[in-house]
């Protein structure tokens, strides 16, 4: 081990936390290195000093305080909803998020079939752009088809 590496091992050495061969290496180094010996001694003195901190005395009302916390209703009760209720709520939300655009898309398709894509686009698409629940893929499809028709092409799927 280099001297630098030895230095970094000194705390662990002093705590008896080094593997036997590492400890032996540190010991051998210490025998010949005065500055490392001084380093170990100062670290030991520091450890000892911190270890002399007294155990703080327990406040007399400690156990009473524990009980009053236990009896106090939790302010974050909703968090403790039983797991199945949480799962049901999540599933319901997912269903709503999927179903609303699906139903709306279906209605849009019926309306587009009824009035023709060109009129549908002119009348409904601008309003649809601001609607978060609209089926955008369908609007894009209809507008592309209307554009193709303007160019004299056959819309997709009409063959």
């Amino acid at each position: 081990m280099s001297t630098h590496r030895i230095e970094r091992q000194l705390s662990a050495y002093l705590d008896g936390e080094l593997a036997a061969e590492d400890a032996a290496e540190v010991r051998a180094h210490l025998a010949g290195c005065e500055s490392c010996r001084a380093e170990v001694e100062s670290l030991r003195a520091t450890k000892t000093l911190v270890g002399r901190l007294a155990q703080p005395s327990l406040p007399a009302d400690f156990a009473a305080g524990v009980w009053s916390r236990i009896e106090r209703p939790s302010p974050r009760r909703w968090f403790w909803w039983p797991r199945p209720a949480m799962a049901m709520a999540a599933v319901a939300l997912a269903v709503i998020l999927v179903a609303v655009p699906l139903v709306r898309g279906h209605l849009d398709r019926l309306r587009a079939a009824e009035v023709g894509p060109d009129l549908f686009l002119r009348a409904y698409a601008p309003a649809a752009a601001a609607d978060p629940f609209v089926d955008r893929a369908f609007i894009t499809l209809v507008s592309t088809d209307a554009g193709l028709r303007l160019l004299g092409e056959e819309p997709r799927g009409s063959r």
Partner: protein
Amino acid sequence: MAQSRGGGRDSYTPDEVARFEELVARYSRHVYAIAYRMAGNEADAKDLSQEAFVRVWRALRRIEPGAPLEGWLRRIVTNLYIDLLRRRPKVRLESLDEPVATDSGEMPRERSDPNVDVERKVLDAGMDRRVQQALLELSADLRMVVVLADVEGYAYEEIASVMGVPIGTVKSRLHRARRTMRERLAPIRQELRQS
């Protein structure tokens, strides 16, 4: 199930309540001491250590009677302290207004290091306060390692498991912390040598 969380005293049988009270009596000094040395003031120390026992209460039926709880409580109180630091990054770093109330050495702690025995007698209130202040000036990561290793006397492996870090990290943090503490405590060591 619902009764095991947040439920009051009547959620358990009288025997279970008695068992819980016994756990509080047995471990509270120890848990409070760790919390106190980490947080540095009575209010936070009480908060942290009492909350740790609320966690025990909620899990009481899952705890085997007679199972040693020290390790678990130590981990809870350490994690609660980490949570506290997250919620309140600027924890009170000034030391206590009052010198710490201690049991003036009537309860010697068990130490893993026999070298400490020589000078086990506790510091007087003024010195205690200065050492605590030096502890509080360390970053929380370093402070926790010093409290667990040098105040409470735990092995590196235990500290690593409590803090959820590798042993190598414990080793390097403790070394760094001790070197910092050594500089800050130099005047105190000087005074102690002279007296």
